[in-house]
């Protein structure tokens, strides 16, 4: 590649790291519109993550299990602290909270069916509980968010667990957002909003602030549901050590920690990329907090934010999580950023619609527009038909099955009969940042930055 101009002179194309094309576009967009950019999905910047950790498989000092013949248990129980009916999952991989409104009703139904097929749970989102979701999901977690859209005692009573949401990884400190084009009649009615407005969500709960009042709120939810259902507390990862301790003090049965890689259907880009800490750092802090309070095994930990594969799940469990939640991975499984969609048994190209949005498959993050080319994050009556529940549920089921198989493959290779026996001593780190954040030694050494050599 040696570009030259018409006169045969070499073109000087020296890029700037700080003022690259992306940054120049951002500034010029701001100059043109006077508005921040809003988009969907999670942080796109490179971050220290589970990719920077590796497993120490069996050899002479540890013995592996046979891949297909020897048992590797994946059963996971959440909410043993106070609830009389804890949640029992077949696999430690759950579907994260995503709203009806952000996603179409077809998608919510697909998720429910897939989760039921593999024996795990789904979670409602900022839009409340739909009948499709409740009927198709064997285990459904009901979120209680600052907005309280559609929140009601009947849905509370028919949920299997309750998740009090303080924040999410994509925007800890911010509230939900749904733009007018996705507020169709059904969404509007469920959220008690006029159709077509741009939804402004509260960032704080209306009737409590702080862990001392959260304690009373959790008691209220327990009293209403007669102490039967586990109550999760979800935080976006920031001061995770303190937050997890406070959630435990406030009475949580399960703590859900969502790292900055976690996705959203719509938020300011600057928020997504600059607020919150990586999931890797957050897991370590959360586990430290639980160990400090002697709550390991009593209060369970669910980790989310950039969980993509069985390897990620295995690493999260090895670091001390009891389960993970997947959001974006599920969307990609459904077809998000795919070149085609399946309708009427046939593949159709979606390329033209990506182009109309000014993007291409593999790069799209336009969930906020409601014009999802493959019918996932849309309320448009034509576009939503591009995601058929039969197809969607099969895809998600396949994805979850695959992830679970990868998880057990790795666990067996480390000699574990139960995926929950994975431990942090099974891991080493590839980079100094990952070693420091996860407090796991650099591969081939005993060194953890910041610790006495050889100390964990």
């Amino acid at each position: 590649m040696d570009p030259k101009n018409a006169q045969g002179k070499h073109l000087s194309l020296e890029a700037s790291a700080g003022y690259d094309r992306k940054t120049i576009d951002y500034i010029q967009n701001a100059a043109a519109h006077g508005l921040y950019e809003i988009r969907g999905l999670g942080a796109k910047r490179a971050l220290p993550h589970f990719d920077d950790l590796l497993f120490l498989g069996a050899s002479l000092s540890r013995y592996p299990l046979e891949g297909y013949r020897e048992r590797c248990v994946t059963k996971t129980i959440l909410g043993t602290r106070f609830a009389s009916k804890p949640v029992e999952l077949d696999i430690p991989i759950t579907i994260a909270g995503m709203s009806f409104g952000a996603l179409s009703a077809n998608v919510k139904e697909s998720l429910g069916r897939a989760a039921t097929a593999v024996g795990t749970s789904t979670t409602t989102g900022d839009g409340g509980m739909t009948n499709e979701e409740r009927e198709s999901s064997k285990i459904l977690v009901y979120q209680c968010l600052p907005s309280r859209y559609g929140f009601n005692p009947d849905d509370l009573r028919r949920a299997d667990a309750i998740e009090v949401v303080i924040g999410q990884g994509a925007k800890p400190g911010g509230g939900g957002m749904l733009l007018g084009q996705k507020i169709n009649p059904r969404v509007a009615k469920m959220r008690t909003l006029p159709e077509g407005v741009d939804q402004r969500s509260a960032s704080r709960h209306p009737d409590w602030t702080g862990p001392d009042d959260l304690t009373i709120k959790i008691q209220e939810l327990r009293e209403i549901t007669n102490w039967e259902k586990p109550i999760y507390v979800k935080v976006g990862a920031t001061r995770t050590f303190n937050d997890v301790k406070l959630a435990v003090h406030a009475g949580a049965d399960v703590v859900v920690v969502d790292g900055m890689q976690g996705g959203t259907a719509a938020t300011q880009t600057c928020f997504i990329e600059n607020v919150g800490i990586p999931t890797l750092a957050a897991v370590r802090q959360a586990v430290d907090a639980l160990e400090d309070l002697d709550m390991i095994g009593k209060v369970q930990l669910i980790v989310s934010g950039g969980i993509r594969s069985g390897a990620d799940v295995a690493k999260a469990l090895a670091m001390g999580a009891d389960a993970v939640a997947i959001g974006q991975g599920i969307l990609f499984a459904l077809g998000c950023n795919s070149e085609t969609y399946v309708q009427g048994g046939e593949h159709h190209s979606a390329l033209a619609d990506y182009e109309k949005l000014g993007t291409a498959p593999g790069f799209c993050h336009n969930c906020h527009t409601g014009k999802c080319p493959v019918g996932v994050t849309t309320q448009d009556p034509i576009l939503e038909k591009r995601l058929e529940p039969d197809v969607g549920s099969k895809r998600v089921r396949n994805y979850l099955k695959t992830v679970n198989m990868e998880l057990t493959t790795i666990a067996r290779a480390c000699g574990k009969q139960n995926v929950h026996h994975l431990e942090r001593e099974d891991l080493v780190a590839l980079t100094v940042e990952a070693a420091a954040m996860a407090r796991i030694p650099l591969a081939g050494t005993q060194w953890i930055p910041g610790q006495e050599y050889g100390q964990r």
Partner: protein
Amino acid sequence: MSEITVDLAGKPVREVNRLLHAPLNGVTTVNVLNPDGAHNIAVGVNEAVKVEIHGNAGYYAGGMNKFADIVIHGSAGTGVGENMMSGSIRVKGFASNAAGASAHGGLLVIEGDAGLRCAVSLKGADIVVDGNVGSFSAFMAQAGRLVVCGDAGDALGDSLYEAVLYVKGKIKSLGADAQEEPMTEADFTGLAELLAKAGLKHDPKSFKRIASARSLYHWNADADQEY
């Protein structure tokens, strides 16, 4: 017509809630004695029963109420009637912050003053306050009505959606996107009915109507980040 009494002195609130959530078998009124500021009294009730709380209630009294008629013969803590769906709650004394937060239906009457953020995130219920309401009342109120027979504090109706507020006394300041509008015949009639239901004698003609200017409904309006 059968009444039972529960004495909460030295007992967990589980006693009264368990009773209220179980089949009532013809019991029409449940009296609660010595509440002494306990939290979560009569939450999640799902029956058309009368609940009389004889004393002061703590947080979330009558939270997520459906069908029940609850009377608190005293004051109520934070979040009285939060997320109520139907039925009614009457507070004889004053109510603390976030009274009627996110309530979808039914009627909440506060005979004394209400604290800050009364009717925050309101979603369709009617709230009538005979006294004053504190600052940030009706913040992000989406639907329903708030009637204030006394004065209102700062930032009344900030970020209002479609809920309508009626205020008789002084308003310290209006919130972003809240504006005073002329009262219509429908307002007068509706307000008269509501005040009668609440058992309060005020002349509807002495109230102001506050509603959303709807200028924050679309993001373009935020472009200058004026608030």
